[in-house]
């Protein structure tokens, strides 16, 4: 399609990412982008252009992100964005595949002695505007009759800051975001706890523009490929050796040594092998960026493979 052609001629995938959410999309002081969402972009670039570094990152805030994608400023929006019906149906966007199953939670200071979200009756809660979060908070407050007073901020940092200075009793966003904030932004992470309630479903994943089904397919299948690679044990370390040694027909298809699955997508047959080589499989990406051993320390939980009790169930690469 057009998108793929222009990516090839420009030699770069343009990827919309978060302005700074540790573990998902953030730049370090040297300008190097890391995170789960970022790795997705890298995998796509590796599959399409053969080089995971050929990505231009465009940091977008909540308000900018959809128009940026709609107008063609970015090729793919990989910015912890929740898939919802409205966004699918009315914004002219396509939801590719879920890369992280999340839910919205609350963070409160330990010293407030709040143990449950139901204790937040009549309290102020800091939230970033222009997110599903804001709406979920309202729904939850209404359903439970809590009368929560939102204090809404334009920018993530402002909302976090207001919480840490004590303007609000609680801070709400996706649980992953809470963990990221607590570990990266709080002075003493142990002073804050994340309440057990998750008040919404937040399937996060990359989006692309409508009207270019080939490109849509490529992004979607790169993600499924990464998932299936994990399922079948293909890793960054063993991808090269498996190319020659593997006898598993599924693995062979993923690595393009038997069938040319790439051709159907308009790519070459090595596409998935390169992606895995560049970023590792989904499990590796998760571990590296947000997993228990990373700075964020999130449990794998629902984001585990389907056969290990999680929700990650890739369509077969076949």
């Amino acid at each position, binding site marked *: 399609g057009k998108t793929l052609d222009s990516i090839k001629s420009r030699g770069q995938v343009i990827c919309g990412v978060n302005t700074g959410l540790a573990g998902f999309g953030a730049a370090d002081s*040297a300008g190097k982008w890391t995170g789960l969402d970022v790795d997705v972009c890298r995998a796509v670039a590796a599959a399409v252009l053969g080089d995971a570094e050929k990505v231009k990152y465009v940091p977008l805030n909540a308000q900018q992100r959809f128009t940026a994608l709609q*107008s063609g400023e970015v090729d793919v929006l990989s910015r912890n964005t929740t898939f919802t019906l409205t966004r699918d149906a009315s914004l002219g966007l396509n939801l590719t595949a879920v890369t992280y199953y999340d839910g919205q939670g609350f963070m409160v200071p330990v010293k407030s002695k709040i143990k449950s979200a139901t204790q937040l009756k009549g309290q102020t809660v800091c939230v970033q505007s222009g997110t599903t979060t804001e709406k979920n908070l309202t729904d939850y407050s209404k359903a439970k009759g809590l009368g929560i007073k939102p204090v809404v901020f334009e920018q993530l940092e402002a909302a976090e800051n207001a919480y*840490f200075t004590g303007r609000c009793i609680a801070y709400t966003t996706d649980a992953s975001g809470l963990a990221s904030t607590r570990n990266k932004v709080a002075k003493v992470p142990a002073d804050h706890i994340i309440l057990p309630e998750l008040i919404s479903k937040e399937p996060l994943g990359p989006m692309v523009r409508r009207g270019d089904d080939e490109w849509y397919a490529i992004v979607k299948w790169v993600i499924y490929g990464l998932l299936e690679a994990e399922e079948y044990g293909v890793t960054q370390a063993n991808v090269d050796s498996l190319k020659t040694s593997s006898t598993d027909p599924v693995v062979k298809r993923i690595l393009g040594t038997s069938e040319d699955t790439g051709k159907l997508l308009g790519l070459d047959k090595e596409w998935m092998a390169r992606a895995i080589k560049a970023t590792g499989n989904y499990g590796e990406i998760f571990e590296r960026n947000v997993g228990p051993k990373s700075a964020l320390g999130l449990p794998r939980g629902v984001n585990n493979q389907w056969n290990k009790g999680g929700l990650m169930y890739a369509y077969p690469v076949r």
Partner: protein
Amino acid sequence: MTSTTFQPIAPRPAPVNSEGPLAWIKSNLLADWKTSLGTFVIGGLLLWLLPQAIHWALISASWSPHYEVCHAEGVGACWGVISEKYRIILFGRYPYEEQWRPLIATILLTGLLVVSCMRSFWKAWLPLLWLAVLAVFFALMYGKVFGLTQVDTDRWGGLPLTILLSSLSLVLCFPIALLVALGRRSKLPAIRSFCTIYVELIRGVPLISVLFMASFMFPLFMPQGTQIDVLVRVLVGITLFAAAYMAEVIRGGLQAIPKGQVEAAATLGLSYWQTQRMIVLPQALAMVVPGIMNNFISTFKDTSLVTIVSLYELTGALKLGVNSDANWRPYIIEGYFFIALIYFVFCFSMSRYSRWVEKQVNKSKLR
């Protein structure tokens, strides 16, 4: 009736009246009971507040770039936040090792601004100098020439961005403003009403809605696939905004030119454009230099709003640097004071300059 011949009396100097500090205090501070009361109330307040402020800001302040020091009891201002973070505040996310480039670029551009303010440099080659310096500025900032590594515009930030946005938008808005101002005084109704609508429309809305439009909506206005750097779009937004205000300032100057000047030019046979270029504009612009400076000052201040659309100019860079660092976050107020000082130094010197120009202009009106 007798009369005398004229005997000029030589002028004498005025008798010395009790000048000196005491007399000054008497007439300026203690003239009558109301004045004295004011002096005591305000003087008392100042005597009470100023030492506290000085104590906080200077005497008990900590300057060391270690946040632990600031936590100690009795420490006032924690300027350490600046010693620690000044590079990110001044240059945003520009690559650390390459920050000499924005430094030089900023000095160049500021120098050019200063030079442009001097009358003796108001020559025909000044615009060329501007072009040259801007070219060097971009070469330095963006790189990719002379073996400099490329630095994308999304990593530009801090002071260079502030200065770039304000000076470039001023330079660019000028020709637009000139045309619009002339258009608003045109005898042709269609042209006049277009210019009026433009000016009134822009002046009726806040800058941030223009910025929102530039950064969120503009891509929708363009043919598919056109990509315009967000920096450029924001620049266009600010420029169009500033041009409307500038046009009004210039129009004020045009209105102040007596009709007789145009008539005199007409009797000498000058054409419309000759009259504008050689008679009307030189006088009108000289007259409104203070207004132009004021406009520049507000544009300079207004660039701080681009932080709302996620560009990291001074304010944004400060928040970027300090908000994400839990140890320093409580001291962001010191950071704000720091950039407030930067803004103040720039704006204050510009407003002084405009006062000076005003005086010069008035002087030349007298013999």
